[in-house]
């Protein structure tokens, strides 16, 4: 066992995202099917550890202790580490981070990180209750806070402080939906949204409209992480994990210093770039957590892609599109692909892996990408999780 072993994502796959006529456990089985089909060199017996990203199976499926359930559904028998990772909307990335840490520490050689979420239920009010309880339940959620009004207040303040417009929000949604139209697993793969249509969609929480909000989505996915000496068994284009950063600075909304200045993301991304030894300008693409259009705009600013307050203009000018400064969310983002909480971080890692292998639809293929950033926020943007990948080969 060598110290500080390098770790790579060596492949993975996703189920179809959307409103799916399947149970939570069936999604886990589908994740197993697509994983073994997508990573031909993988044998179940060589997977020593399993990390399951699942935000709220207790509410969505009335099931806890899901890690052994997922192992059984996928036909795995992990013999070193088996655990669930819960970090709300960032649960998938949390699973990847734990797998990375385990391999890096020498406790695992080949680990699978899975994400599963089944959000569409006969009662969507139940799903909305589950989402509300991500926030401070007795002191915020019980008073009517859910994600849409929270991000709507963020949007309102950004409009007030920086002159950001609804049209700029729509520019983000249009871009990400266009990419999703070239991603067959995306929830909105076959739904077209032009800017005029987006601006006519009903309000969910003013000023945010339906097209500004990511959907309730059923979906699952899995990736394989391997130690450096095992990587070549699986791929010629490993996605090396070169940097990570994470920051958590409040939970109750009263303790959020600024609605529009996400300093936690600035800190998390600085740490990730520092540990990777690169700067934002070195990136070839970024998967940013666009749970709402306003989120992506503020993320540009917090990461340093543009000055504070200019995120709206950055999007509207096409600077986050293919051919711009840095293409953001070529997968289709949460807005276009849907947001099955625990599976979202896995889907972003699969996108990195497929972009590096040049296996995505040519219309959304980033030219010869070497460096990629993945970001998830969770809750009321109170936790930010960042990873930096470099293509090997």
């Amino acid at each position: 066992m060598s110290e500080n072993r390098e770790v790579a994502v060596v492949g993975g796959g996703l189920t179809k995202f959307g409103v799916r006529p399947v149970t939570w456990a069936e999604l886990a089985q589908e994740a197993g099917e697509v994983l073994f089909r997508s990573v031909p060199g993988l044998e179940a017996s060589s997977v020593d550890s399993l990390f399951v990203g699942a935000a709220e199976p207790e509410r969505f499926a009335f099931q806890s202790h899901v890690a052994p359930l997922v192992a059984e559904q996928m036909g795995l028998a992990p013999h070193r580490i088996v655990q669930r990772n819960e970090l709300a909307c960032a649960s998938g990335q949390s699973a990847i981070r734990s797998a990375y840490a385990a391999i890096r520490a020498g406790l695992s050689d080949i680990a699978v990180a899975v994400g599963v979420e089944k959000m569409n239920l006969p009662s969507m009010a139940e799903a909305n209750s589950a989402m509300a309880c991500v926030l401070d339940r007795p002191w915020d959620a019980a008073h009517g806070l859910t994600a849409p009004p929270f991000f709507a207040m963020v949007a309102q303040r950004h409009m007030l402080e920086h002159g950001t417009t609804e049209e700029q929000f729509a520019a983000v949604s249009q871009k990400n939906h266009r990419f999703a139209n070239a991603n067959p697993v995306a929830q909105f793969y076959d739904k077209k949204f032009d800017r005029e249509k987006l601006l006519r969609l009903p309000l969910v929480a003013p000023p945010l409209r339906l097209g500004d909000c990511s959907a309730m989505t059923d979906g699952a996915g899995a990736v394989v992480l391997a130690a450096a000496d095992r990587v070549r068994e699986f791929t010629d284009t490993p996605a090396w994990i070169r940097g990570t950063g994470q920051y958590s600075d409040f939970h109750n909304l009263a303790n959020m210093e600024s609605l529009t200045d996400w300093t936690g993301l600035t800190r998390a991304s600085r740490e990730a770039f520092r540990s990777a030894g690169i700067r934002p300008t070195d990136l070839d693409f970024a998967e940013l957590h666009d749970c709402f259009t306003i989120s992506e705009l503020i993320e540009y600013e917090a990461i340093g892609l543009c000055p504070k307050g200019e995120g709206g203009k950055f999007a509207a000018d096409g600077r986050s599109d293919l051919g711009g400064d840095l293409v953001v969310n070529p997968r289709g983002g949460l807005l276009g692909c849907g947001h099955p909480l625990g599976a979202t971080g896995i889907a972003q890692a699969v996108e990195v892996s497929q972009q590096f292998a040049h296996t995505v639809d040519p219309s959304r293929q980033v030219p010869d990408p070497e460096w990629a950033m993945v970001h998830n926020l969770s809750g009321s943007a109170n936790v930010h999780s960042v990873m930096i990948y470099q293509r090997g080969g």
Partner: protein
Amino acid sequence: MSVLSALAEVKERKAPKSRKRRSGATASPPMAASPVGSGPPERLPYLLDLYPLESAAQTRLSPFFEALHQGRFTTTRCRKDGKLLWPPRVVCPVCHTTELEWVDLPATGRIYAFSALLAGAPIGQEADLPRVVGLVELDGVPLRLFGRLLGVDWQACRIGLRVRLEPLALPDGRAYYAFRVTP
């Protein structure tokens, strides 16, 4: 639907709930108390606890709820570093002392940000839309609290409007509060 009539839904579940809690291990399982189709669906009142957790037997923060019943809005302040804490706490997160004191909060403030939920309500709140909510900057203290905004439509709501705390008693005896827009 007004806030208070929405809150009255709490009554629907109170009686069967208390029966369930007394049923004990030898009685019928809870599901048997409300067979399918026998009455209104179970509803969570505003994501509050399914049973009261406000008494001194349940929480060290019971003085908050007792004061709210008396119309006073309070929180804790650290006696050592003077930090005003929200939500109220039993240990200071800065110096980790348990030497906290209860202090009154101002009952007035102004709207810092607001929105309204027009769709996608949690359980028990489906009929309670649109629901105007916001962050309120309390007068004279460094606290910005989230709450429901009463007495204003979302179309007429504006940043900077004055609000006053409105203590509310839920029909099952629990304390609750919202902010009412004042002229």
